[in-house]
């Protein structure tokens, strides 16, 4: 069976589900950020696949913007984690309760 659009979409769905599980289940904040990156990458695969199989180049332009936002998010997120680690000596997401009411 030749590889078609559905194969890329299902691969992207599998990667997104893995990232979703990591975001919800993990306690280490750095691993949660890594899972978010996996989810963003999965969405990018969907964009590129649709762009190729319908020959609309806008999909690839959007992927560039998603990459920009992902880089900014990783920089700010990791800076936040390091700042919280300095004040609380932990990166356990279940112990980040300083904004809990």
């Amino acid at each position, binding site marked *: 069976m030749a590889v078609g659009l559905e194969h890329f*979409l299902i691969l992207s769905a599998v990667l997104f589900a893995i990232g979703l599980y990591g975001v919800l289940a993990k306690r280490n904040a750095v691993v949660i950020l890594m899972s978010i990156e996996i989810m963003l990458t999965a969405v990018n695969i969907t964009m*590129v696949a649709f762009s190729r*199989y319908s020959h609309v180049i806008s999909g690839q332009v959007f992927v560039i913007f998603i990459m920009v936002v992902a880089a900014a998010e990783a920089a700010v997120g990791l800076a936040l984690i*390091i700042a919280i680690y300095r004040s609380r000596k932990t990166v356990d997401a279940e112990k980040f309760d300083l904004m809990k009411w």
Partner: protein
Amino acid sequence: MMGLDIAFWVLAVVSVGAALAVVLTRDIFRAALFLVLCFFTVAGIYITLSADFLAGAQVLIYVGAIGVLIIFAIMLTRESRRGSPSGRLRLPALFIGLLFLVTMVFVVVSTDWYVIAELPTEPTTTAIAQALFSGEDGFVLAFEIAAALLLAAIIGAIVLVREK
């Protein structure tokens, strides 16, 4: 096309395996290395989709910048000896992930997607640049906002981690 199919299956299996290793390994440093492997294989998948510019950008941004950033953060927070344990929400998270996966596979398989008959294989860099900067329906304003966003993110990251 046979070689492309084989390449797709190899890259898909390796990327899914690496992503699973990221969320399942106890050693957080190894998880970061598996994440870099996952990004590399996704760059290969872009090549099988004949998106050459994005494959290069993927290697530069994800493998180069974000990979190094995450490894730096792991070393600075020194939590690697405690591993990456799962929280209380492990079983609900597994359930939600599987539910999402089953829904998506069902939707993808049962939808009749619009696919053009003849797939083009020309380079995409010029086409992306023209779509990005063309006058009528380009993305010039979004491009400028992306530059401002990156600047704001850099300054924000510096302010957040600066020693008091």
